């Protein structure tokens, strides 16, 4: 099978989906479109969030730093069926102002149940990256260390908050009484890896597991699309289980990543429990595969796995909200899933909400490494402002 044949099947699927959605449903969809007199035809607004904070890390020597960020989200609504949304990110790190376009997408609301998304969008792998990562939504001033970018304080993350170029279909079925089923299927350009990774010897976890990046290049590096999907069951008004996964090549030599995610969320009263975990399997191919043949994969290949999970509990008590989170990462050597490697991180936080969207959040991260890697403890305090 060639990449070209795959792409043809993808195109056929997408076009079929588009046609199927537009053909029988379009009549009813159109009937739900309001007249101009009923709903304003367009609107532009700026929302978003910002952060200002301070952190101390302790890894033998103590270091501290101030930090700040702003993420304006621009919304352009046209009628009841189109929305263009783009989120920018500005932050200051070591005196340098970084800017990025987190996502820029067009949402086409095809019917009451189906939305087509195109552009650069947050990939619905798990729940945290797509819905919970904004600082004022996340109950703690730091992310679970599974997600993020290398260079941030703390352990090396496994995945960035994923945003990639492509097309996505999202469905939502309201089953009444607060129950429902939602799903997404998407095709994107796929992952690539940071330079300098993936060339180590087999068994060397740090070198073997590459740092992935998504959406850094709108070109397709290998003519192989990343495919993924998610399905979520809202079993009760405040109880949701979410399954998701993706597969895609991250190099032009057949190296592939497959990932699976399970997430759940439950709220009762003012108590909130949530968590998610994922497993990623790497098939390194090509002549420069690290530790060729040593990992138990087919000749010339190395297979590795890694994964992790976090669980988080919080309790709102008036303006106060204590939070606790446990994160565990299991690193893998080739063809084994060595749960002795990796780390655990315990995070304890306390929020004070000045308004529904403004909070002062403090968090203490304590790491327990199960390898030789030294992981600093960290205290973070920041203002989170949703506007």
């Amino acid at each position, binding site marked *: 099978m060639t990449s070209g044949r795959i792409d043809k099947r*993808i195109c056929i699927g*997408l076009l079929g989906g588009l046609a199927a959605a537009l053909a029988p449903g*379009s009549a009813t969809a159109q009937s*739900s479109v309001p007249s101009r007199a009923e709903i304003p035809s367009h609107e532009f607004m700026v929302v978003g969030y910002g952060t200002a904070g301070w952190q101390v890390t302790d890894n033998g020597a103590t270091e501290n730093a101030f930090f700040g960020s702003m993420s304006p989200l621009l919304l352009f609504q046209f009628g009841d069926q189109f*929305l263009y949304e783009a989120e920018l990110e500005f932050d200051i790190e070591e005196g340098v102002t970084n800017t990025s376009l987190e996502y820029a997408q067009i949402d086409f609301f095809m019917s009451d149940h189906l*939305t087509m998304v195109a552009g650069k969008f947050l990939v619905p792998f798990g729940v945290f990256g797509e819905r919970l990562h904004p600082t004022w939504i996340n109950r703690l001033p730091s992310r679970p260390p599974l997600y993020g970018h290398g260079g941030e304080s703390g352990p090396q993350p496994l995945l960035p908050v994923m945003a990639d170029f492509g097309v996505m279909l999202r469905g939502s079925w309201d089953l009444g009484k607060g129950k429902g089923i939602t799903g997404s299927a998407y095709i994107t350009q796929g992952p690539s890896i940071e330079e300098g990774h993936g060339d180590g010897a087999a068994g060397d976890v740090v070198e073997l597991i590459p740092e992935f990046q998504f959406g850094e290049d709108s070109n397709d590096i290998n003519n192989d699309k990343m495919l993924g999907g998610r399905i979520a069951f809202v079993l009760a008004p405040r109880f949701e289980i979410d399954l998701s996964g993706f597969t895609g090549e991250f190099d032009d030599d057949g190296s592939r990543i497959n990932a699976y995610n399970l997430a759940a969320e439950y709220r009762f*009263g003012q108590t909130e429990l949530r968590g998610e975990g994922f497993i990623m399997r790497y098939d390194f*191919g090509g002549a420069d595969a690290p530790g060729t043949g040593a990992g138990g994969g*087919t000749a010339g290949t190395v297979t590795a796995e890694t994964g992790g999970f976090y669980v988080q509990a919080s309790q709102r008590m008036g303006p106060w909200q204590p939070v606790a989170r446990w994160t565990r990462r299991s690193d893998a050597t080739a063809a084994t899933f060595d749960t002795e490697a990796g780390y655990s991180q315990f995070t304890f936080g306390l929020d004070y909400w000045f308004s529904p969207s403004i909070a002062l959040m403090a968090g203490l991260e304590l790491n327990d490494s199960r390898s030789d890697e030294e992981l600093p403890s960290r205290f973070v305090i920041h203002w989170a402002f949703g506007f």
Partner: protein
Amino acid sequence: MSTIAKNHAWSAARWALPPLIVLLAAGCAASGTVERSAEDPAALASYGAEVYGYSCARCHNARAAVERSDREWNAAALHMRARANLSGRQARAVIAFLSSVNTAPTAAVLPQPAPTAPPVEEAPSAELGKALATSSGCAGCHVIDGAGGSVGPSLDGLFARRDADFIRQKIADPRFDNPNSVMPNFRFSPSRVESILAYLKSVEGG
């Protein structure tokens, strides 16, 4: 495609996804839409209060409707429809709820349903209070009689925690004790406040 991936179960998933997309699209399209004109505005707003309580509250603290105009809530609801997987009807319901309780001077952009009859002073009753609580979507944010949302405090056992005067004043003016309260002011008449009071008392055996 490499021999590695051919041997992997996920290669099957690659082939399965395009047909799945077709099925997803066809399923969504076949399930149709709810026509706006067919929906009772009051019922839609009441449903919106529920959605606001159990869906929006998953990630957000409740924000007061007066923070934005109806037009802005409309755009925000579309954004959240794509982000939080709301159906079209759920998004419209949330907009209807926020619009119905939005007292901001600049909010009145969306046409509001005309009152079906001039307001009259009914005799207070628990039955009327139940109807008012239902149509206003109180259970979207509060637990009443064992069921409801968690945005606001439970109203079960309320009379053990608060006296009747406080409750009466809170219903009439939600911000009288807390200027940051996000509870909407429904502008109930004094007799309707008494009806709701009677209903809340009845569900806790008072």
